[in-house]
């Protein structure tokens, strides 16, 4: 193990932990904005109760999100100084936009959302709620834009060891940015709504819940399910758009997704590996279970379209065998969970049309509720897997095709330094995750406040 590997593990560890919280912040911010909007529109008190209850969990996700975001931006300087120095004029600029244009809006509005109940008019409170959603989403946009540029670095020239921007619009809105942002934003909604639906289902499954509490959680179950039904199919369509983007911009990464080694000769189709395992030295698979022509069809949308294989790239310019295996497996986890979530959404539609998403009919559909509880981690795992596909598939490049990960590292870093911070941060992350679960369980057990007068 060397400083490079440690630094990569530390960054991956931090990023994987961090992404969980903005995911929930954005998803819950949307839910809160819908609830407050409906409350103001219908004057129905039950929406206000929803708002006050789910805001508690939102606060926790926001706090841990901020806390875990610090180490991420710090590590660009501490561990990846060479990358930051070379790419700062674009990458740092975009992160500067994220904090100044998006994050400030979110944090200042958050004060009003949490504490402003009697201090500002209802309309101002609702606007602050919307600003939290917009600020959080805009933050997500800038972060994805910065990351997309590392995948598809358009609009820059590499001059004397530094990136110089030649076309800002091309760099920010590279072919990857908008699709990636849509994919990420939808992932936030899907994953969070499965959390809301799962928590609601868990309460509905308890035997001695009060009727008012059941009604409350049926309410949140219905809204979460509605958002799941809308977003899950759209998410699959958006995900499919990556095929063409990758083929045009990151062909070696696409080949790693599929452990596709040899380019299909003209007139024949590329087959899709359902499962495969590569040879230890790369160059081909030990075995594979594949469907003929399907890969060509998915990527090029014709039965025999050309899909470049990994062997078309020099070994130093394509993901290593280990990176390729992780990419291949993560991709299957993501897609598999996506399909599972889609079928749960279909099940939800069927039950809805039969009119059983009401009390007490829902209580007899225990299997549906149990599946919803079991599906709580699905969206989170799928998102993590998706990011692993995206980032590990990018290797060995930090900026695709322009700067290698090995050239991105800080100078004069000592292994004990990185080791200490890696262990320290990992311990903190684990403790935070445990504390979060404990507090959410406590908040849910205590249930919603259904009596305090409305401000």
């Amino acid at each position, binding site marked *: 193990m060397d400083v490079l590997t440690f630094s990569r593990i530390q960054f991956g560890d931090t990023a994987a932990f961090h992404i969980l919280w903005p995911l929930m912040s954005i998803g819950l911010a949307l839910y809160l904005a819908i609830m407050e909007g409906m409350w103001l529109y219908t004057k129905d008190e039950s929406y206000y109760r929803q708002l006050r209850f789910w805001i508690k969990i939102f606060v926790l996700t926001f706090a841990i999100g901020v806390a875990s975001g610090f180490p991420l931006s710090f590590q660009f300087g501490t561990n990846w100084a060479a990358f930051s120095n070379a790419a700062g004029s674009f990458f740092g*600029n975009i992160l500067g936009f994220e904090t100044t244009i998006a994050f400030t809006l979110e944090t200042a509005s958050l004060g009003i959302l949490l504490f402003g109940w009697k201090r500002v008019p209802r309309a101002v409170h609702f606007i602050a709620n919307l600003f939290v959603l917009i600020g959080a989403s805009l933050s997500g946009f800038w972060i994805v834009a910065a990351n997309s540029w590392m995948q598809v670095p358009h609009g820059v020239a590499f001059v004397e060891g530094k990136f110089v921007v030649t076309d800002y619009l091309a760099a920010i809105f590279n072919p990857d940015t908008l699709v990636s942002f849509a994919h990420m934003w939808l992932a936030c909604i899907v994953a969070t709504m499965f959390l809301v639906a799962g928590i609601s289902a868990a309460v509905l499954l308890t035997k001695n819940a009060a009727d008012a509490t059941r009604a409350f959680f049926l309410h949140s179950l219905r809204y979460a399910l509605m958002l799941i039904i809308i977003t899950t199919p759209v998410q699959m369509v958006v995900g499919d758009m990556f095929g063409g983007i990758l083929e045009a911009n990151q062909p070696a990464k696409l080949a790693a997704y599929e452990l596709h080694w040899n380019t299909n000769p003209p007139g024949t189709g590329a087959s899709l590996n359902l499962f495969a395992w590569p040879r230890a030295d790369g160059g081909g698979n030990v075995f594979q279970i594949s469907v003929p022509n399907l890969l060509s069809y998915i990527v090029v949308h014709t039965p025999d379209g050309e899909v470049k294989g990994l062997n078309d790239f020099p070994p130093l310019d394509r993901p290593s065998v280990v990176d390729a295996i992780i990419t291949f497996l993560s991709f299957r986890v993501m897609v598999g969970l996506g399909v599972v979530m889609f079928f749960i959404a279909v099940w939800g539609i069927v039950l809805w049309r039969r009119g059983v998403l009401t009390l007490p009919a829902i209580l007899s559909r225990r299997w549906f509720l149990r599946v919803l509880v079991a599906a709580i981690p699905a969206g989170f795992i799928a998102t993590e897997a998706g990011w692993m596909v995206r980032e590990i598939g990018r290797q060995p490049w930090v900026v695709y095709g322009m700067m290698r990960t090995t050239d991105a590292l800080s100078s*004069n870093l000592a292994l004990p330094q990185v080791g200490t911070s890696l262990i320290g941060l990992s311990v903190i992350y684990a403790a935070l995750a445990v504390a979060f679960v404990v507090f959410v369980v406590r908040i849910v057990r205590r249930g919603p406040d259904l009596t305090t007068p409305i401000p």
Partner: protein
Amino acid sequence: MITLPIIWYLIICLELALYVLLDGANLGVGIVSLFPQQESKRASMLTILGPIWNANETWLLVAAGTLFGAFPAVYSIGLNALYLPGVIILIGLILRAVSFEFHAFSVHKRPWSFAFGLGSLITAIGHGAALGGLLSGIAVVDGHFAGGPLSWATPLTGIIIVGVVASYLVLGYAYLIRRMAYENQHETFSRLLTTVGITFVALAIATLFLPVQNFLFFTRWVEPPSMYYLTAIAVGIVIASAFLLHAVIRHRHAERLYPLALIIFGLGFVGMLVGTYPYLMPPSITLFDAASPHNTLVFMLWGIGPILPIVLLYNIYLSRVFRSDAHEVRANAYDI
């Protein structure tokens, strides 16, 4: 002539000053909460910070993000060199951020209010370590950090850590007196007096030590025009301190303490800039060496320039909305 790098330098200094002064008071309150006292007092301290501390802390992220974009060499080399102070600040900020929210939901308040205070203290120590490391001088060869993991840990850094923690305490006490959350005013005044004393001793030693550690600062005190500016700032600090001490000793004008403390530390901040300009990392890297290419600075100015005044106004609005006393705020908190 005012050029783009100078404009960005001034913007970042403004953002940093806002962070240090606003969050400095919040961190100070956090450290005060560590001292023995009733748990209800601690809770009321946390309550007055509730609506504002997040927005205040954001200025650090804003300054860091802007620095990364406008002066990437300083962001990268600086954090490379100040790895451990950076980690200390991170741990402090994480602890503070989460314990604040967990405190609101917890059954046993004491561990979380303690974690909040501890997080504030660790953050302040980290600030001192980073500032000390920066002022002690960072070795740079060929645009890369050339020192070791502990190069920042000089005697000067030790003194600056004490000075920064004491400064935040002064701001914190003054802020508490202004918000009237701290009921035992008499005791608070005497504690404030003690911390003012510690701050001045620490900062005076640091000022004397600086030229020894980093020769640049010697020239700043003996060469015009910087020596005139520095002298004027020092006189300003002495006058403002005299007003502060007078108010503290006489236990009068409690509402003036916080603005006076802000003026003193604001002047101190300006003095540090005069002492270091145009260096961002004295004595090796100037703001002109580290600046991003011209087109990046222009583009960032179009993106961030119009937003900053809006953010400032929004934050002023926020602090006005939550200006009344601690008791009233608590009634509106997301109590569980």
